[in-house]
């Protein structure tokens, strides 16, 4: 989005790690930035409407909630059908991210990525079997890449 200005960016920097847990959090952010509370709320609403903010609420730590297995399922599906297939896979309630990405043949024949979180690998495998059933003959090959270690996780951060 090109419509973001410096004030929007300051609001993003002030809220990207979370809202203050006080009764009037937007006023607290406004005071910290030397702005009016109405101005902060108006800009946050505009960013929400524009999709700059995906949503506002609780961001669960899925590992702490017991979702210990994280499987990146990757699929070789016909390029011509990927819009429809991706939409159907993304609609499954256990898929947390779903993307069309480029193949890198011959090492990497897969073009559809669906991230699945489960309590253990057996649960992830059952979920992936449901994706395979949904795709039917469009599934020309797939794999599950389990994460074995988090090497770095700082998240996306704008700098002030």
């Amino acid at each position, binding site marked *: 989005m090109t419509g973001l200005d410096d004030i929007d960016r300051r609001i993003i920097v002030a809220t990207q790690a979370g809202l203050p847990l006080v009764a009037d959090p937007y006023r607290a952010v406004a005071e910290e930035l030397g702005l009016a509370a109405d101005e902060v709320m108006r800009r946050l609403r505009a960013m929400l409407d524009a999709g700059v903010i995906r949503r506002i609420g609780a961001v*669960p730590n899925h590992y702490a909630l017991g979702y210990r297995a994280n499987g990146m399922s990757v699929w070789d599906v016909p390029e011509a059908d990927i819009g429809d297939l991706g939409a159907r896979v993304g609609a499954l309630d256990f898929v947390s991210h779903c993307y069309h990405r480029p193949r890198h043949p011959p090492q990497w024949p897969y073009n559809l990525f669906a991230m699945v979180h489960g309590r253990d690998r057996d649960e992830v495998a059952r979920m992936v079997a449901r994706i395979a059933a949904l795709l039917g003959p469009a599934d020309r090959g797939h794999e599950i890449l389990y994460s074995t270690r988090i090497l770095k996780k700082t998240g996306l951060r704008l700098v002030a």
Partner: protein
Amino acid sequence: MDALDRHIINGLQGGFPISERPYAEAAADLGIEEAELLDRLRRLTEDRLLSRFGPMYHAERIGGALTLAAMAVPEGRFEQVAELVNAKPEVAHNYARDHRLNMWFVLATEKPERIAEVIADIEAETGLAVHDMPKRQEFFVGLRFQA
């Protein structure tokens, strides 16, 4: 974590109001008091059951660029390569995965042209190929983690 914690986590993963007293409004929807919701959210974030509470921003719509990249790293060099890759501030996440392509990382840059520069640097420093897999399309997901 008790039933009320679960109710809060499951019920508040989106739609938090933008208003003068948003916690009071959200608490009313959950059938509890504002002070109780604030206490619970403080504890859930302190205990790390929530990563945070607030807006989830969409990086590309802020003007930055993101990509997913993968490398096949020889087992004996894995730690050394991880150190080189992680040293780049543009690397936001990096995961070891059980595949021939065994290192998967997300690059996030404020300027789109920076992605190719960082990939070229990593290839030069490690002598290994980096497979760039930028998303072509993102499919809507309605996921809510059940606590």
